[in-house]
């Protein structure tokens, strides 16, 4: 049985109920079939509001460490309030990416901080496509827009999205090859290919 830890233990800047968030973590782990032998540590940076959304996932020493901005869980309609739907989707996506690293053909993927925007957006589409199949409240067009932003506004990018959204199994190596295909088809000037170097995560916390 996985151990679950949540930081902070109580939220002080946002109106998130820590017990409710712990319950959502537990529920989501069950829904995505997260391996019972792996502990889960969730760290929420409650300072960063919506729309500053970002997450990082790493697996080491039998623990999956998930970091989120508070904006990932926040309702865009109720400032500082929790959105259960957003929280489930963000947790589900991160847990699936952790699961991919554990037993899904992504063991050789670099740490989240080291993968670029295109690789990241491919992986997230793959994760959300599976969440869609599982009945999570994901929005396909929202993910598609993000995918085009980093993968390119062209037919090759759209075809790659369809493939990943279908949820058909893929490995890190195959995903990387797909990222290369997108890069080759991307006719935008280099500055439009948007390889991100910045992070919202405070350096001291990484």
């Amino acid at each position, binding site marked *: 049985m996985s151990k679950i830890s949540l930081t902070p233990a109580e939220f002080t800047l946002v109106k998130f109920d820590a017990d409710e968030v712990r319950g959502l973590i537990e529920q989501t782990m069950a829904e995505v079939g997260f391996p019972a032998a792996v502990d889960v540590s969730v760290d929420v940076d409650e300072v960063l509001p919506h729309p500053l959304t970002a997450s990082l996932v790493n697996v080491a020493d039998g623990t999956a460490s998930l970091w989120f901005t508070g904006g990932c869980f926040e309702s865009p309609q109720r400032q500082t309030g929790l959105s259960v739907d957003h929280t489930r989707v963000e947790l589900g996506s991160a847990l699936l990416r952790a699961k991919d690293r554990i037993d899904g053909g992504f063991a050789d993927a670099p740490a989240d901080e080291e993968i670029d925007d295109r690789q990241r957006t491919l992986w997230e589409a793959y994760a959300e496509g599976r969440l869609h199949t599982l009945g999570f409240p994901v929005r396909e067009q929202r993910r598609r827009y993000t995918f085009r*932003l980093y993968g390119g506004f062209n037919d090759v990018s759209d075809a790659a999205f369809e493939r990943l959204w279908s949820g058909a199994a893929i490995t890190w190596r195959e995903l990387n090859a797909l990222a290369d295909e997108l890069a080759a088809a991307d006719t935008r000037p280099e500055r439009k290919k948007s390889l991100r170097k*910045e992070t919202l995560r405070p350096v001291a916390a990484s």
Partner: protein
Amino acid sequence: MRKQLPPEMLARDSRFVRTSIMDQVMDPRNQKIGERDLGSARLEPQRPAAADRARNLMHGIFTGEIQALEGAGRTTFDFDDEQAPFALKLDMARQCWDESRHVEISVKLGDWMGTEIGEYSEATFLYEAACAPDPILRLCGVNRALEGLAIDVFNTMREFGDLSGDPVLEFCEDWMLADEVTHVKMGSDWLRRLTADDPERRERALDFQRTVDKLFSLGGFRGESDDNPIQLARNFRSMAGFSTDEIDELAEIAAQAQADAQAMVAGSS
């Protein structure tokens, strides 16, 4: 039909959730965010969370367009022909047509970006600036200050579309930007015509515009540095009838609004 409709009576369906400026000002995270070094605040595709930030801004544009439609619509109705010449009301009616089209375009851009109507809360301070009892104050507050802000916002979004290679966003924003330039120019022209013999009234109206401009610079939301998500669009403002001195003054107002916000953060820490 009632004249001078207050903001709380604006018609919205159940998808919309209203927020107040106080919710934003009193958010306990503001001070902590001010202490973080989050890098440039410009809306650019390579910035973290660019997609969600763009969606958020696009929904703000959408609700802003609804309120601009409501504001211009009220001005066609709230005043008799002595208070506001018929030709001015015709201009406002034509602006209503533009704003209606902008609402439709914004809904479709929301669809394109994966945003639902009402997904983000709506603040009504744009409409509140359109509630002034003097039509000249409305023209300064809405057409020159707020439609001027719209020029800055649309230009920022158009550049975001260009930088990200999104042909739909860039094209739509460019079209709406062209309309906004004419709305601002309309405000500038009517201000000069209606106050030609009344410098005191003109100064009152310009004072109101400065107040609205400062409010909408929102502690650094708009300006000319990397700290400002929305960049002041000097060229388009010039096309809309702003003099260089007026643009410089606006830049100063924006810088002051940002300095005030920083001082507030420093004072509370």
